[in-house]
């Protein structure tokens, strides 16, 4: 036994993020009670998050039972099941504004297959990239990665959930970048991606294009699609240096920022805890990715390394895009903030991802299969 079987920095950062998220909802529910005179929706988000966190932790413990190398044998059926669910959700899914994103389960709870699918794609891509090398040349591997990522992305885009779709592609591409590609091969990949991006833009629905255009100029239509961003910026900015806390916050309790509990949760942090609190949260994310890097550095197994690269990439992409959209630096895409945004599937996915990273670290020196 080595002295450290657990990635302590990493675990600490994950726990702090989860606590931060819970604290945010709790304080928001107090602010809501202060303003409205009774507990409202934020308190129910707090309660549900506690429950979901319990479930997620059970899943996380279960994930520790299987050494990550066994995922090589589980990934193919898991991928198949996920693809089936992604197809199923297009028929029976529920979601806001006519989208079909959740498979309804119990009560208000539902499963959002696209969330978990991000993790499945990461493991699948890691699997492809580490398949026994003699059988495959580089081009074939890239094609295989595309064969995994592109249909997934298309199905998710169909829901429609453009943000997650782009995320799946983005994570896959960044994992590919870490494959042993030469600079020339990277350049070819870049050209292919550019052409693909053009194709995607052409295939976008008007409202999706509008979101991107709105991002470029939020004041263009202040009461239309720019409204969310403006309200989000207002709420964030109103927090000032130290935040408005329980008694001063108004935008959250009066629900001026749409979906402030989920996609725009960062503006909630900004309003409640101010620049100080927001900076602390960003520091926690920086801690998360660098502690993940420490895990990565300790690994010699490529499969494990790709998994950690993929998961870390997923986190920083989501965090950057989400925070960026909250403060008007990136388009509104509906990507949640890992560990913080309210949402069962999202929480389950990210806690599972963290559990997998721990698993990889813990079982890194065990015998290879």
């Amino acid at each position, binding site marked *: 036994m080595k002295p450290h079987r657990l990635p302590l920095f990493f675990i600490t950062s994950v726990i702090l993020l989860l606590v931060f998220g819970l604290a945010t909802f709790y304080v928001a529910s107090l602010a809501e009670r202060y*303003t*409205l*005179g009774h507990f409202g929706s934020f308190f129910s988000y707090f309660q549900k998050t506690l429950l979901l966190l319990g479930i997620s932790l059970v899943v996380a413990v279960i994930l520790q039972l299987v050494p990550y190398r066994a995922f090589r044998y589980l990934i193919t059926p898991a991928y198949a099941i996920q693809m089936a669910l992604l197809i199923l959700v297009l028929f029976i899914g529920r979601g806001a504004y006519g989208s079909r994103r959740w498979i309804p389960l119990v009560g208000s709870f539902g499963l959002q297959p696209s969330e978990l699918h991000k993790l499945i794609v990461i493991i699948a891509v890691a699997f492809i990239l580490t398949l026994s090398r003699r059988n495959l040349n580089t081009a074939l591997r890239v094609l295989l990665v595309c064969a995994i990522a592109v249909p997934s992305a298309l199905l998710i885009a169909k829901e429609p959930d453009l943000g997650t779709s782009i995320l799946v592609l983005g994570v896959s591409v*960044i994992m590919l*970048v*870490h*494959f*042993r590609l030469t600079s020339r091969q990277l350049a070819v990949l870049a050209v292919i991606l550019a052409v693909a991006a053009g194709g995607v833009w052409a295939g976008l629905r008007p409202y999706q294009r509008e979101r991107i255009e709105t991002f470029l100029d939020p004041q263009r239509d202040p009461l239309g699609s720019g409204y969310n961003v403006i*309200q989000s*910026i*207002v*709420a*964030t*900015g*109103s*927090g*000032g*240096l130290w935040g*408005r806390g329980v008694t001063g916050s*108004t*935008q959250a309790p*009066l*629900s*001026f920022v*749409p979906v402030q509990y989920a996609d725009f949760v960062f503006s909630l942090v*900004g*309003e409640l805890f*101010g*620049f100080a609190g*927001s*900076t602390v949260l*960003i520091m926690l*994310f*920086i801690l998360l*990715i*660098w502690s993940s*890097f420490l895990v*990565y*550095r300790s690994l*010699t197994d*490529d499969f494990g*390394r790709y998994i950690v*690269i993929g998961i*870390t*990439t997923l986190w*920083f992409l989501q*965090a*950057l895009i989400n*925070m*960026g959209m909250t*403060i008007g*630096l990136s388009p509104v895409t509906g990507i949640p903030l890992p560990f913080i945004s309210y949402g069962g599937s999202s929480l389950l996915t990210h806690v599972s991802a963290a559990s997998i990273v721990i698993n990889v670290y813990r079982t890194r020196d065990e015998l290879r299969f």
Partner: protein
Amino acid sequence: MDKQQTTQARRFLSLLALVTVLFICIVGRLYYLQVVKGSYYAQVAEENRLRIISTNAPRGEIKDRNGVVLATDVPSFDVVVTTYDLKDTDSELAAVAKITGITVQVLKDTISKAGVSPFTPITVVRNVRKEVALQLAEREPDLPGIQLVMSTKRSYPLGTTAAHILGYTGEISDTELTELRSEGYVVKDTIGKDGIELQYESLLRGQKSQKLIEVDAQGKAVKTLQEKTAIAGQSIVLTIDVQLQQICEKLLGDNKGAAIMMDPRNGEVLALASAPTFDPNKFITGISDADWKAWSQQHSLFNRAIAGRFPPASTFKVVTGTAGLETGVITDDTIIRCTGGLTIGGRLFKCWIWPTGHGNEDIYKAYADSCDSYFFTVASKTGINAMDTYAKKYGIDKTTGIDLPGEAKGLCPTPEWKMDTYGVPWYEGDTMNMGIGQGYVLETPIRNIAIFSSVAMNGTLWRPHLLLASVDPVTKARTATTPVVRETLGVSVETLEIVRKGLNQVTKTGGTSLLQLKDIEVCAKTGTAETGTANRYHTWLAAFAPMDAPRIAVLLMYEDSPYTRSTSMSPLVHEMLQKYFELYGGENGSN
């Protein structure tokens, strides 16, 4: 680690370094939003959730001295727009335009003129008709952001009565708004435009109610944070007595002219009428083109009583007599012979009785006969400088300070003025013409009655005023106007005694004897001014009574009179005096 893994680790490290930089960029952006612009966004957040709902305070009532209501507020409906709540601005405003008959452009202009935050409701149409209100009420659920609200509108229950005193209210104009925004006026507010409504705007207006409410993102009120109830405007009690006012208006009838009744002891104006008149209600409900045309042609809105300037004619003989007596040119013994006129500088100045004559006249008889020859002579002997001095003592060139907007000054001509205006020198004939109130001299009716009041009160002019008191609508606390002395003549009591005696003689003979009251001695003077058109005159009759302790001064004046002789007005002025003494006690009555 093999070589490939090292390359990969380097790539990952660079990527994460880049990501860290991006995170720090977010921190930088947050610093800008939260620390640099924090207070700005905090304020925007406040505006997000706070709305000030303001409702107009009831405007104070205007009553006559006996409590008869002359102006009051009655319920009406306004259309209010909250731009933030509009879902489809164009189609909703088009709907409002269609129902109210006001163009979309006007509505949009009103909204942009308001210059308030999108959360503040803006009144876009005031006093909509009942049918319009009903239609709008029906459509309201389909028109988010548009509301029909209860409001009030001004009403003048007695219609044209005292219209020129009351004035009227109207919608605040752009220029008024620019000036008065700091006093809390907003677009579409009602503001006094003329008369008492304008003069005492600040008393009548009251303070709007202001409710600071917190709303959620849907604009639903969550709670009221602060509430300032409306403070109703002060009620105004006028010195006017509607019964006397209506007598005056009846006497003016369809003619042009002015009638004033005033208490010389304190300056309280009991009646002040100007004809033709108008119905101020039409300013609230809408003025038809026909009305507007008629009003414009006849200058109906013009308050002749305070702003009309006319040659005072023989009523001016009070001034001439005073000047003559004070300068010693005449005494009450001085006899001047009237031969029907006198010739000065080769020009014949006719007495009105020409070609006959009045014969020997002292000042008393001269007043009684209104002998022009007598006053020509006095004026001529007194000279323009002294005439001018006494005309100014009587305040011809000054306002009386009555509490109404738009009071005009008379004209007190001087040689310098004539040279400046016409480029010709002053002739003695000019002085003589001035002596009988013709030529260049001009007076307003209010100044004319002020002159008679001064004479009545031994040289003291109490400032004519209409505000008897203002009354707080809640506490009923009454703030009464303290009469103030506006001018003192600086003329000896003896002189004024002689003038009064002369004016009393006026009522002893001829047509003016119809002025006489039972047991009450009346002082009066007529005046018939040439208009420049043959056989058309402005006629005056001013009077006060009782002679020894005057309590009432009256004045009746017709512009372009139906009478060719002012003495014909005697029964009318008699009626005014008679009514006063009926109402306020007869001889040495208790009032």
